[in-house]
């Protein structure tokens, strides 16, 4: 999929530096990053976000927007599951390629879940990764959010599930000499285990 620059093992200035280093067309990148910031900032916010003209400010703002969005959506979709503040990963996927190697994404999700004390079978992680990658690959530069839940078969409480949310926005980092475009992805991923809301109408 690309190279993960995650807040779990890098500082924000380090992530920003990596993004700035990879961006060859600042105007293009800022245009897409502002779309991501405006698209992913939860609408419950007091005021819509400003338009950024500096990559060093836009990148953290976009990551924060993705984090805010995934938390907001998680709490709306899984109101009975408590999302610990620590159970959230965010950052940038550099050198993103559609239909790229999914193993990098599987590894990142696996590491996240281990960090959060969540154990699910590898097949389930692969399904989550496939879902996220499919949504990112098809997003056509539209910032978006996706979600899912996985039954926790080995849990003491049989009704427990893993609920997860991923917010993302693909942005263009510049053109190659042959005219092709390079991309990166702003992302946030969060997950927690609990008893899901049961709805019967």
């Amino acid at each position, binding site marked *: 999929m690309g190279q993960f620059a995650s807040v779990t093992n890098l500082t924000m200035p380090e992530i920003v530096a990596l993004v700035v280093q990879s961006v060859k067309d600042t105007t293009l990148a800022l245009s*897409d990053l502002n*779309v991501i910031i*405006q*698209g*992913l900032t939860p*609408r419950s916010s007091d*005021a*819509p976000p400003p338009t950024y003209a500096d990559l060093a400010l836009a990148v953290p703002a976009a990551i924060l927007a993705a984090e805010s*969005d995934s938390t907001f*959506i998680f709490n*709306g*979709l899984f*109101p009975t599951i408590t999302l610990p503040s620590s159970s959230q990963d965010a950052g940038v996927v550099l050198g993103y390629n559609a239909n790229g190697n999914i193993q990098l994404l599987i590894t990142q999700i696996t590491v996240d879940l281990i960090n959060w004390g969540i154990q699910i079978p590898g097949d389930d992680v692969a399904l989550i990764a496939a879902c996220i990658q*499919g*949504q*990112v690959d*098809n*997003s*056509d*530069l*539209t*910032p*978006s*959010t*996706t979600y899912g839940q996985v039954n926790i078969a080995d849990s003491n409480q049989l009704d427990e599930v893993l609920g997860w949310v991923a*917010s993302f926005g693909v942005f263009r980092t510049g053109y190659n000499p042959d005219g092709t475009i390079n991309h990166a992805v702003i992302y946030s991923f969060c997950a927690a285990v609990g008893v899901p*809301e049961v*709805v*019967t*109408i």
Partner: protein
Amino acid sequence: MNNVESTTSGQSAISSRSSLSDKPRIPLAEAVSRAENWRNLVVNLPAENTSDGSGTNKAIDVSKQRIFRAININIADVKDLMEDHPQAKSIRLYLSLQDPDYPYQITGMLVPVDVNNHDMLTKKSVSEGLMSESEIVNSASDSTIYDFTQPCPALCDTASPLFNSTNSLENYI
């Protein structure tokens, strides 16, 4: 009007005791086409007449990244609304903008609608004498206008053929 359900539109608004299978439905292929028509309309949406008085319409700069495509509504929230308003006949979704300076943050406002097609907007009424009109219209807790929808973007299924007509049907049929 006793026991007569008043409706103002055509077949799709007719409410009877028919089963869901009797309701008007759209073939997937036509739905894909309709969704594409909407996206094409939005990206070519004319702005208000220009201020130079020429009356010439200019297109709003709506990039494909910003096309308002859909509104996601939680089933659980709909259930809660139904329980709070058992007398409601339907739910009306109003489109809204929280801030006109940010025209891409379109949101939905859900309103229960009674059997006479009247929006049910507040829990209290002035006639009860407990609250003034000003207090009622400015009270969120006494409002029955709900704000629990999520627009797409950002809550989308980007792989859906309704999101993009070039997307594969493979996982949906």
